[in-house]
């Protein structure tokens, strides 16, 4: 599974999201890679990914990318990321 962490520039908040998503994935015990993308590259990168994680503002900006977009409120809250991923994957 491939998860895409998206922010405006792909270098700031998405990196924080990636760090915490990786920990959440480890706790869920699923095999998944997390990559970061910026708004400009998110659509292309989504073509080979399964789930997008991002903020509400960026979710609105990227719109429909053909895969589920999960809005994360607190990027340093591993529990929120884990719960939303688990809900989406159905585990």
């Amino acid at each position, binding site marked *: 599974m491939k998860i895409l962490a998206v922010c405006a520039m792909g270098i700031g908040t998405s990196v924080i999201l990636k760090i915490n998503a990786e920990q959440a994935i480890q706790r869920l015990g699923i095999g998944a890679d997390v990559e970061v993308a910026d708004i400009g590259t998110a659509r292309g990168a989504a073509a080979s990914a399964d789930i997008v994680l991002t903020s509400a503002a960026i979710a609105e900006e990227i719109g429909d990318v053909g895969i589920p977009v999960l809005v994360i409120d607190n990027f*340093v809250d591993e529990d929120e990321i884990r719960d939303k991923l688990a809900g989406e994957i159905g585990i």
Partner: protein
Amino acid sequence: MAEPAITRLLAVEAIVTGIQVDDWRAAIRAAGELLVAAGATTDAYTEQMRAAVEQHGPYIVIAPGIALAHARPSHVVLRTALSWAGLATPVEFGHPDNDPVELVVGLAAVDHDGHSAVLARISHLLAERDLLRVLRAASGPEEIRALLAKHDEADR
């Protein structure tokens, strides 16, 4: 990648507490001016941090009450550094869940690798709610740096 110590990146002159600002633009400007004061950036970087939010919305408000102001690594960054602007009165950034913001952390990095390592460090710090509560109650820059030094030490 080794995570750099927060206190190595956050100069005492880059910290203010209880600063009064009218809105989110002024809050970002405060964090940017602290980076400039620490010799880490030029005014152009402060402008880029503001422009990112104008363009993309309040996505830098990454946790309740906390904004991570930053722009791309570029020549307007002179060295990798952090700033810390604690607000006297919280301001709205327009984030649906994490408003109002009472702390703006400014981040400047000279390159992408430096950026990622600093972000890993910041991420771990911001996840520690108890420490953040203590930091918010701190009386001034020296106390904040002392608390963060203890945190750096404990993480080793």
